[in-house]
């Protein structure tokens, strides 16, 4: 089954392009470290998901590019085509001339309805190219106007037009020290609206990826391209083909469905965080060896201590001991920084994955008492190494990972809202104070739900 990617706004299009690059380069690479047959299966599964066959030899990405101003899309299309390894369908893009001005209301209430038909036609066309549609993967930032506002509107339209398909929104959390002054307003409006139509929100925080680039990848002058490439690597590690528990001889056919089924048991909990280890500069790969026990131990500690990367993990954080009779999940026994999970998914790629023991993730103390670890934890594996890493472990977690960032964003937005600053810019385009209040209420609800886990 295939995934149609919808790239929205400057951020969405820049990242989307890196994602297809990463996937394509992984498939083309000779570091699969597995049998030829295995490689071929992997290659076929990947192609089905992300690329369509055209008459030309070059695979065509299953993607729709949307932006309200033309510069980024034209750049993206030409760079992709120049690579010679893959390209976009030149008809699959839509842009306008003027941009959304970082104004969520402009993206949602003006551009959305105005261009709904054209955009949905493009999506329909891509969807029809798929033999079977697994669902949609949208990439957007929360801070701007197009990705956030128009993105929220398009997600709604996707839900209406394709009620049985899965929708996964990849949302970029802006730098907390500001890329856009009204980013907190835009974020609050985006998240509250996405929560209604999306199946899950997969979040990447710019601050976190920036740190990874600085400390793990040793990049001196970090550019957005560097940040986007790390993000693309992490996304690739989730979406490239794997074997699930269902079958260990055929690659899973329904990546989005499997993801949702595993990670979103309850519609109140849709915020997914991503961790991928190891991460290092390419030229260090040859000198490093890893063991599964080591990687798994690190990953688990990253989960419970809410560490953003594999350096600086707080090893003091321990799960509370079971056996103490605390019936409800309002446990006051849990140590303050312990990260409780609703559901976890670990994906292992590379050599000897069959030997990897993931029992530590099935520890009931990681989850609230009303969840059984058998349901809450899943593992996917493949012996095919990913993107030149001999061993690579990814964690997709529906947990309190994003609680603090969410709380921060809502807090700052509320602070600004109390002074009514910038509100006139939104009411100008039809988003009223009440709409803001609705969004705030919705998100406080989400925060509350995650807090009392």
């Amino acid at each position, binding site marked *: 089954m295939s995934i149609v990617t919808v790239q929205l706004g*400057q951020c969405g299009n*820049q990242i989307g392009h890196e994602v297809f690059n990463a996937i394509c380069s992984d498939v083309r690479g000779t570091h699969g470290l597995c049998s030829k047959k295995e490689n071929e299966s992997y290659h076929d599964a990947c192609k089905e998901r992300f690329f369509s066959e055209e008459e030309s030899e070059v695979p065509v990405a299953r993607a729709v590019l949307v932006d309200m*101003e*033309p*510069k*980024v899309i034209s*750049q993206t299309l030409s760079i992709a085509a120049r690579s010679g390894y893959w390209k976009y369908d030149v008809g699959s893009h839509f842009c306008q*001339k*003027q*941009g*959304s*001005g*970082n*104004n969520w209301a402009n993206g949602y209430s003006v551009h959305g309805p105005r261009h709904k038909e054209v955009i949905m036609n493009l999506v329909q066309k891509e969807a029809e190219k798929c033999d079977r549609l697994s669902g949609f993967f949208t990439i957007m930032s929360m801070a701007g*106007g197009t990705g956030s506002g128009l993105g929220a509107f398009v997600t709604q339209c996707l839900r209406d037009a394709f009620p049985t398909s899965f929708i996964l929104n990849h949302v970029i959390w802006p*730098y*907390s*020290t*500001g*890329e*856009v*002054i*009204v980013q907190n307003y835009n974020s609050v409006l985006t998240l509250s609206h996405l929560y209604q139509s999306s199946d899950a929100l997969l979040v990447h925080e710019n601050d976190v990826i*920036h740190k990874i*680039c*600085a400390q793990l990848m040793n*990049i*001196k*002058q*970090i*550019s*957005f*391209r560097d*940040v986007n490439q790390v993000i693309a690597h992490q996304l690739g590690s989730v979406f490239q083909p794997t074997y699930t528990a269902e079958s260990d001889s055929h690659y899973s056919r329904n990546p989005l469905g499997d993801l949702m089924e595993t990670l979103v048991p309850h519609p109140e909990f849709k915020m997914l965080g991503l961790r991928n280890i190891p991460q290092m500069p390419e030229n260090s790969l040859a000198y490093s060896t890893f063991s599964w026990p080591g990687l798994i131990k690190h990953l688990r500690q990253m989960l419970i201590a809410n560490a953003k990367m594999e350096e600086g993990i707080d090893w003091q954080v321990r799960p509370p001991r079971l056996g103490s009779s605390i019936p409800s999940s309002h446990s006051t026994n849990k140590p303050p920084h312990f990260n409780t999970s609703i559901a976890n998914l670990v994906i292992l790629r590379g050599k000897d994955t069959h030997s990897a023991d993931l029992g530590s993730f099935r520890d009931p103390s990681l989850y609230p008492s009303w969840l059984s670890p058998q349901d809450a934890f899943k593992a996917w594996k493949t012996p095919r190494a990913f993107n030149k890493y001999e061993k690579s472990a990814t964690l997709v977690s529906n947990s309190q990972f994003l609680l603090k960032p969410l709380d921060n964003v*809502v*807090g*700052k937005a*509320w*602070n*600004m809202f*109390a*002074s*009514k*600053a*910038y509100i*006139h*810019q939104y009411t100008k385009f039809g988003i009223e104070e009440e709409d803001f209040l609705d969004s*705030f*209420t919705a998100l*406080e*609800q989400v925060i*509350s739900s995650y807090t*009392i886990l």
Partner: protein
Amino acid sequence: MTQSVVVQVGQCGNQVGCRFWDLALREHAAVNKKGIYDEALSSFFRNVDTRSGGDGPDIYKGKIYSLKARALLIDMEEGVVKEILQGPLRDVFDSKQLITDVSGSGNNWAVGHKLYGYQYRENIVEKLRKTAEHCDCLQCFFIIHSMGGGTGSGLGTFVLNLLEDEFPEVYRFVTSVYPSGEDDVITSPYNSVLAMKELNEHADCVLPIENESLFDIVNKIHQMINFGKLGSTVKQNSLVTSSAGSAKTVQEKPFDAMNNIVANLLLNLTSSARFEGSLNMDLNEISMNLVPFPRLHYLVSSLTPLYTLADVNVPSRRLDQMFSDAFSRDHQLIQADPKHSLYLACALLVRGNVQVSDLRRNIERLKPSLHFVSWNQEGWKTGLCSVPPVGHSHSLLALANNTCVKQTFIELKDKFMKLYKKKAHLHHYLHIDGMEQSCFSEAISSLSDLIEEYNELDATKGGPRMDPSRLQIAV
């Protein structure tokens, strides 16, 4: 890609405008090597085939034939515009884009606004419509004028009003040159305050400029060129001060260097809209992010670097110096010190080979010494444009919505009151049809209210932070 139209009004407006067009052509020439009419060029220029004589149809793609500025030149006396049309830029302007008269406005806002406004209204509207028709997607009008005289101030603000009526969806960015301390026009306070009311009510964004600041900056650069710091040399063909290599061959007028700075301001402001970058910043984003309340739309600007060093591979330390300079008093284009006042919002537009990590590092570094209003503690808007300006490897434009701008307004108000109390020169204004005493009282009242709004914000500075309590959700 969107288009912008420049409306230059009065002597000052036209002289600055003239520098702007010259520098814009140079900038595009440096970037556009193949002579193809591209989207970046189309933001300020039309492409017209003039071989058939007269005004051919616009050509949207392909080779460049003849570039015509998307501009309207308005002046109520002929001297300045005539000089432009006889100079090397004559082919860039279409005779149909001019509106001139002979006798000038006598440094009288009322003459410019009421008399000439009424007289030329239809002519102006028609020419604006024509210019707008040539645009695929008109995003912004840039008005360039001075506040102290009669035409730029009076007729300029009349045009501002007109633009709001006729093109309500298009942004109005106004670059206003405020009178300097030793201004020799006695009535400049009246003209400026009357114009301020119009700016308060009809402009989306105002970039105030003070001649004193420009003069100080130009002096500093000349000192650097002549006396040079130890171990460094200064690039002299930087676009900032020198018009060498541009169209002018006659000796530079004294104001040319100062006007170049303002012209560069406009070029840098629009650079991210015209050229590509990893984090684009369009004109509508500037207004959205920097104007938290409709009337507080006055932005203090600063440009760096104002000179370049000979070595092109500038190590990080120098890059950081650029950021520090942008916040220093000497680089501001008005006589104000934003560092010691309260920031409502701040935008940084970087051009050239600068990456997001450089930006982040410098914001972290400078933040502790700046005061931001309590509800916008991280109020930074950032943009990265890959194309550097001519003669530099990178540059930075900082736009601040900062309470320090109120100083300019307070001084203006004081000067106004000195004259108004004695009713000096009022009769020159009041005998113009449409002018009444109430125009004056409303104008000063509008200015006072504006100053008061800034005062109220300043009062919150340094006070204890009272974050409003969050919504409580029933569990």
